[in-house]
């Protein structure tokens, strides 16, 4: 082979790079620049140094960060537990499981916004299913408006997030379970291992890398989630469901304070890069353990 530079592989990257650089990378850089300005609806834009960052923390932003992480923690944990249970059920060799597989996926298929419309009806206190059934079963004394109170609205947004996110986690873990060689189970069975023991000693250790991968990806997606909270509560009542994304959106686009919004967006990017670093470290470790698998 001659040592001339081969341009062909670079040329093949041009369309993808052009699109991603224009639509994602440029706004990314612009976010950093804007965060140091007082950009708003006015024509003049001045650089204001770290003023926006300092003001963020004079607001209740620390509270928003804590709330975001609580929201994310519960959402991701429940999704992982339910997803693992769901994958076990999807993997069970019983008649009717292919129908079950089809019926589990709709929350992931339908547009997120439409799923959320349906949930906002479910949460309605006067006419919704949950409040109605709760009264019938004697759990509630009267109509309960789930989205009107801080803590119940917070829980309601998590439940909807779990509903949307669980199917994909379950399907992904199912794929991991199916890649486990059958011989392992047969060997364990020959040694007299019970079904639960086989799950604990064969299935769980072998899908642990997939669970870890899914935990991180799910955390990133949950962190970035916008539509669920915005349609259900717009961050209310009285800010009780305002996560970092919602707060950024409200400041930047609803109140037209682009500069302050951009500073909040930069804070989000800081957290996201921490997740990204964890994710890359995890991938590197997994590839090393599995040998040169790609």
């Amino acid at each position, binding site marked *: 082979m001659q040592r001339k530079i081969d341009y062909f592989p670079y040329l093949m990257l041009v369309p993808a790079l052009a699109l991603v650089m224009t639509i994602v990378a440029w706004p990314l850089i612009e976010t950093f620049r804007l965060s140091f300005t007082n950009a708003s609806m006015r024509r003049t834009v001045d650089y204001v140094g770290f003023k926006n960052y300092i003001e963020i923390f004079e607001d209740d932003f620390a509270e928003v960060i804590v709330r975001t992480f609580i929201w994310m923690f519960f959402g991701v944990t429940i999704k992982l537990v339910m997803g693992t249970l769901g994958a076990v059920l999807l993997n069970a060799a019983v008649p009717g499981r292919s129908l079950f597989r089809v019926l589990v996926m*709709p929350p992931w298929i339908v547009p997120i916004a439409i799923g959320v419309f349906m949930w906002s009806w479910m949460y309605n206190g006067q006419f919704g299913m949950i409040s109605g059934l709760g009264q019938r079963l004697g759990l509630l004394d009267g109509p309960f408006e789930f989205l009107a109170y801080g803590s119940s609205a917070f829980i309601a947004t998590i439940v909807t997030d779990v509903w949307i996110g669980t199917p994909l986690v379950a399907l992904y873990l199912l794929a991991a379970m199916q890649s486990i060689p059958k011989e392992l189970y047969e060997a364990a069975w020959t040694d007299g291992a019970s079904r639960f023991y086989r799950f604990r000693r064969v299935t769980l250790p072998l899908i642990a890398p997939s669970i870890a991968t899914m935990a991180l990806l799910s955390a990133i997606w949950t962190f970035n989630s916008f539509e669920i909270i915005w349609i259900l509560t717009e961050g209310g009542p009285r800010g009780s469901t305002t996560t970092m994304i919602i707060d950024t959106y409200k400041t930047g686009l609803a109140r037209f304070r682009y500069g302050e919004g951009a500073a909040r967006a930069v804070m989000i990017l800081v957290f996201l890069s921490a997740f990204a670093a964890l994710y890359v470290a995890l991938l590197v470790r997994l590839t090393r353990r599995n040998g040169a698998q790609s």
Partner: protein
Amino acid sequence: MIDKYRWYEKLAIYAGMLVFLTFILAPFVEAFVVSLRPLDQVFRVPYRFITDDMSFSAYVTMWESVPRLGRYIFNSFFISCCVTLLALSCIIPAAYSFSRFSYKGRDGLLGTFLAINMVGSAVLIIPMYKLMLNLGLLNSYFAMVLPGAAFSVPTGIFLMRSYFLRIPKELEEAAHVDGASRIYTLWRVILPVALPGIMVVAITTFISAYAQQFLFALIFNSNSDLHPLPMGLYEFFGRQRIIWNELMAASLVGITPVLLVYIFLQRYIVAGLTAGAVKE
């Protein structure tokens, strides 16, 4: 043979499936029930699940209340198809380049795509709005197609790359010996072999583009002729007095096409996940 399920294990499995499906399908069932009620009966206290005055009339009247419903459904499909085509034309050459050649900066670029994948579209919405404004693309299909495609390219590259890596290199070497150009080899030798992988990437891109049109339409588009389904219904949803039975009927009719697509193509989706790449 490995042990069969005992009766109580089977019972537990079916009970588990029932609980799972109740949670998953409850909103759909409730939406369907609401869509069958006359509006004045929708707001009935106390709550009743089934009543005797149910009818399909909301499915007729919704076409008057949401006159553009057909248009919204078309827009949703049209936008998702454009996103998929544009994304594929970026993904395939890039994934081929990443999987088949070794060159300076390759791993760095691949890592950059991976990192960009972490950033959600809502974070960048302010400068993206300015970008669309400066390019003069606001209130056009482009404003919804371009971002949709850009955010699905990184995941697509990873998925597609893992498929290309599985195709033996001998195929290209044989074509090269026969004097085929590299573009010709990619087009006529590699792509046909990779077709199942391309299908998987296309379907996952389509579904995620379909599921996530809301934000871009909300911010970049105010022309209701171009609205995708979720945004069209959101305008309807945001009115003072929501006509719930028609909203639910329209939602259910609107999601039927994509559910049919999913049912026919679901084996590709499962295959895509098994390949180890995931899409939100």
